[in-house]
C-alpha cells in the first residue's frame, strides 16, 4: 500500500534549492539536487529548531541559516559544526 503525498509541482523548486513542506504536524525540507533529483529531510536543524528550508543548498549540502550547521541532504550525515561529536 503506498501513501504518496503530493508535495509540490517539480517546477516549484529550482535546481540546487530547497522548500519547506509541512504535513500532518511535521515539517520537512524538500530538495532538488543539481543533477535534478528530489530528496527530503526533517525540516529542522539538529542544533536549534530552525527551518533548514531558509538555508543555502550547495551541491549535496544544506547549510542551516542560523549558524551554518552543514548536512548532506542525500545521506542525512552532519558535515561539521555546530554539534561536535565523533
Amino acid at each position, binding site marked *: 500500500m503506498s501513501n504518496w503525498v503530493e508535495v509540490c509541482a517539480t517546477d516549484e523548486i529550482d535546481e540546487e534549492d530547497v522548500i519547506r513542506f509541512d504535513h500532518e504536524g511535521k515539517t520537512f525540507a524538500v530538495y532538488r539536487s543539481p543533477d535534478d533529483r528530489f530528496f527530503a529531510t526533517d525540516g529542522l536543524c539538529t542544533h536549534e529548531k530552525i527551518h533548514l528550508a*531558509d538555508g543555502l543548498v550547495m551541491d549535496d549540502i544544506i547549510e542551516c541559516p542560523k549558524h551554518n550547521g552543514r548536512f548532506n541532504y542525500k545521506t542525512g550525515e552532519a558535515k561539521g*559544526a555546530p554539534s561536535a561529536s565523533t
Partner: protein
Amino acid sequence: MSQIVIIGAGECGARAAFGLREKGFAGQVTLVGAEEHLPYERPPLSKDAMLHGHEPKLVSEAACYAEAGIQVLTGLSVESIDPAGKSVRLSNGGNLTYDRLLLTTGARPRPFPGFSGASNRIRTLRTHGDAVSIRTQLQPGKHLAVIGGGFIGLELAATARKLGAQVTLIEGLARILTRGVPEPVATVVAERHQAEGVEILCGVKIQDLAETRDNASILLEDGRTIVADLIVVGIGAVPNVELARDAGLAIDNGIAVDQHLRTSATDIYAAGDCCSFPSAHYGGLRMRLEAWRNAQDQGTLAAANLMGGAETMSAVPWFWSDQYDLTLQIAGIADGAAEIVRRDMAEGAFILFHLTADGRLLAASGIGIGNAIARDIRLAEMMIAAGVHPDRLALAAPGTKLKSLLAA
C-alpha cells in the same frame, strides 16, 4: 608525537579536541578547563538560556568525550607553561607534559574601571554562573541598567524585557553598536529596543558606580543618577594572554599567531578569542575576533596543524546576533569600503554590501526578522572569500539570485 594538551575548555578547545580525533590523531588528548562545566555554548547566555535552560547547553555530551578518548579536566586551571621542558603546571599542583600545546584561553569581560565585576549587583556576563546570577535578579518590575551598547548588552536588554524587567542602556558614544556595525543596521536595532520600552542613553559619560545593600547606581557626568536593582557592564572583552605572556610568547592584542595559528614558541599554537592572526582576505591585517564560528573554525584548523599540517586560515569573519525576533548577521570587515549598495528585501529586511573603490566585495551586513537575510549573507561571504567584483545593480535587485553572482 603522542601527547597534545589543550588549555581552555570552551568552544574552541572542545572543537580542537574533537577535530584531532576526526583527523585520526591516536595519541593522548587532554583538555584542561578552569570552569566547572564541560565546554558549553556562550551565545545562549544572553539569549534564550536567560529565559529557560537551567543547565548550560553543552558543546558535546560527556559520553562523546569518553567515546572519543578525550580526557577533560574541568575545574582546574593551568598556572604556568614551561616551553623548554614542554610541560604545564596545574592549579592542583600536578604537571602535564606535552609534545604540542594549544592555547584556547578565550577572553574575559573588560571590567568597569575601578570595579572588579565580583559584586552581585554590578556584574559582567561571560559564564553560565554569571547568567544564572543575572537571571535570578531579573523579575518583572526590577530595573536593569546595562552599561555599553554592544551585542551582549543589547541582547541582554532584549531578554530582560521579555522577563518583564525595566531596562536602561547607557552608551558613551553617539550611537550603539559602533564597532563593526553600519549605522542603518544599528538604527533598526535601536528603534526596536525603544519600541520594546528600553530606554537608550547615548553620548553620556559615567563618573562613578555605587552600590548599597538595596540597589546599585550610576552617577553620570551631567549630574544625573540612574538607580537600578542590577547593573551589567558590557564594555567589551580582553583576551586571556597572561599565561602566554609569562611563558615568553609574543603578544599583540591577543596571543600573536601566524596564518597557521602557530605562536612565537615552537610547538605551541593558539586559537579562538585569545589570539590575533593575520587575516587572509584583508591584506594580512592582524585581527582578533570574538565570534562563535571563528572559535570553531580556528579550533578545527588548529587540530590539523597540531598534527603536522600547514593549513592556513581562510575563513571570512562571520557573526550573528539575535534581539527580539530580529537577527543580524555580518560577514567580512567593512573597514576601507568606498561604497555601500543596499538590497531591500521583504518585511523590512535589508543587506548592505560594502565594496572597495574598484568594486570588490569586502563585507555584507544584514538585518531582518528570523532568517530573512541568512542565505544572502552566506552567499556574500562566499563572494568575499572568492574576491568577487559583483555587479552593483544585481546586488541591489532582490529578484536577482546572489548565487548567480558568485562567479563574477
